[in-house]
């Protein structure tokens, strides 16, 4: 038998702090996702069209960041870089770590999209005078966006949940705020159940928005002109 009296009343006053934390979590997720997406586009472009030295460098980057724990990567940025004279705030260290990590995964995801490009369209673009960069921008990326929309959406959801790692470094995002409130009220069950619900609400809303965006963009087709 559960001999526990739920006292949600004690944590309601703290709800604004939790929601503020949730906003910070979303901010982290969005910034690192779009930063990572840009890194991934550059990485996939290099892996597909770059010279052999550049390809090796990108491969090394991807291998490193997909084969080490994200926590260790951020620890490195936060604790090891100061020894080299580079001091980052905890938020910056987490954002940078998450962005670099996302960049590695999004390079791999986008590389698959680049490989599925239609060679015939590339040839048409080439003889119409498109440079390689213009081919990527006008022919490959719209194709990649369309083909990869579902896996990219999944990656964004995973990253949103992954932001909870920032709490380890004292960033007061959703999990961080939950820990703070827990240490003053000790209503752990209430706080973490509410926190979990907020995460669920965020990811469900994000999934719904992405689904709507996907159907609007791709029924009417991507227009990157």
């Amino acid at each position: 038998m559960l001999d526990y009296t739920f006292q949600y009343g004690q944590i309601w006053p703290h709800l604004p702090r939790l929601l503020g934390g949730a906003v910070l979590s979303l901010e982290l997720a969005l910034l690192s996702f779009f930063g990572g997406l840009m890194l991934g586009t550059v990485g996939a472009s290099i892996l597909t069209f770059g010279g052999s030295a550049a390809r090796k460098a990108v491969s090394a980057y991807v291998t490193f960041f997909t084969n080490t724990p994200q926590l260790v990567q951020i620890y490195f940025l936060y604790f090891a870089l100061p020894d080299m004279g580079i001091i980052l705030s905890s938020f910056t260290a987490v954002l940078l770590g998450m962005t670099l990590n996302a960049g590695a995964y999004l390079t791999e995801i986008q590389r698959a999209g680049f490989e599925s490009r239609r060679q015939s369209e590339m040839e048409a673009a080439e003889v119409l005078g498109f440079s390689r960069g213009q081919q990527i921008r006008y022919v490959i990326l719209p194709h990649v966006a369309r083909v990869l929309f579902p896996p990219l959406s999944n990656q964004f959801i995973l990253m949103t949940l992954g932001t909870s790692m920032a709490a380890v470094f004292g960033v007061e995002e959703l999990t961080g705020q939950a820990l703070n409130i827990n240490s003053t009220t000790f209503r752990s069950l209430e706080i973490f159940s509410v926190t979990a619900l907020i995460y669920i609400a965020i990811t469900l809303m994000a999934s719904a928005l992405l689904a709507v965006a996907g159907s609007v963009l791709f029924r009417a087709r991507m227009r990157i002109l």
Partner: protein
Amino acid sequence: MPRLVIAGLEACYGSLKVLDGIDLDVASGDVIGLIGPSGSGKSTILRSLVGLTPPTAGSVEIDGDNVDYKDAASVARLRDRLAIVFQQYNLFQNMSVLQNVMIAPTKIKKRPSAEVEEEARALLAKVGLGDKLDRYPDELSGGQQQRVAIARALALRPEILLLDEVTAALDPELVSEVLDTIRVLAREGMTMLIVSHEMGFIREVSREVVFMDAGRIVERGPPSRIFDAPTEPRTRDFVSKILRH
């Protein structure tokens, strides 16, 4: 005065030599039909000319300007003057019909969008697609897509148009709408190199017909001579097989 002078052109796929010394002069306003069996190198001539299968030997001159296929700037100048239309249309699937025609002049040549749009609409009307501007390629028939591809090529105002088996992928009933478009261009004096298996059409629009086999030009001449009185045995053999059915 010849506009395009091709001399000793060679091209390879790996170790296979698919063009083996092609000499061809194309004057302004010429319509030249390239015929021959599959694998004879007709399409490769066109692909080599635009640099998609860069020549391994020989020279190409346009109005006295020698093309260096290893030099990107030289190839870019060449592509300002030559346009190619492919068998499979190769339209940009993520763009509407109008966008397909407008993208190269606006984004690559940086011409003003309003002026380009007016021209693009006129070109699309000319190929009979004035009512399909906002459609996407996968909503069009093959014949319609191929006419968009022709309009897209013309939007860059090329001096010479290369047509690579542009009706080969089409259902028979759609062939004539594309051929009609090409007839109009021929009447307007467009310089064209046409690779096709539509012998009746080649005979009708070409000023000169070139018969190729095994990467070489076997025989060339006015359509009436090539089709009715070829001198080379290989040509006679090909033409008789074609005309028998």
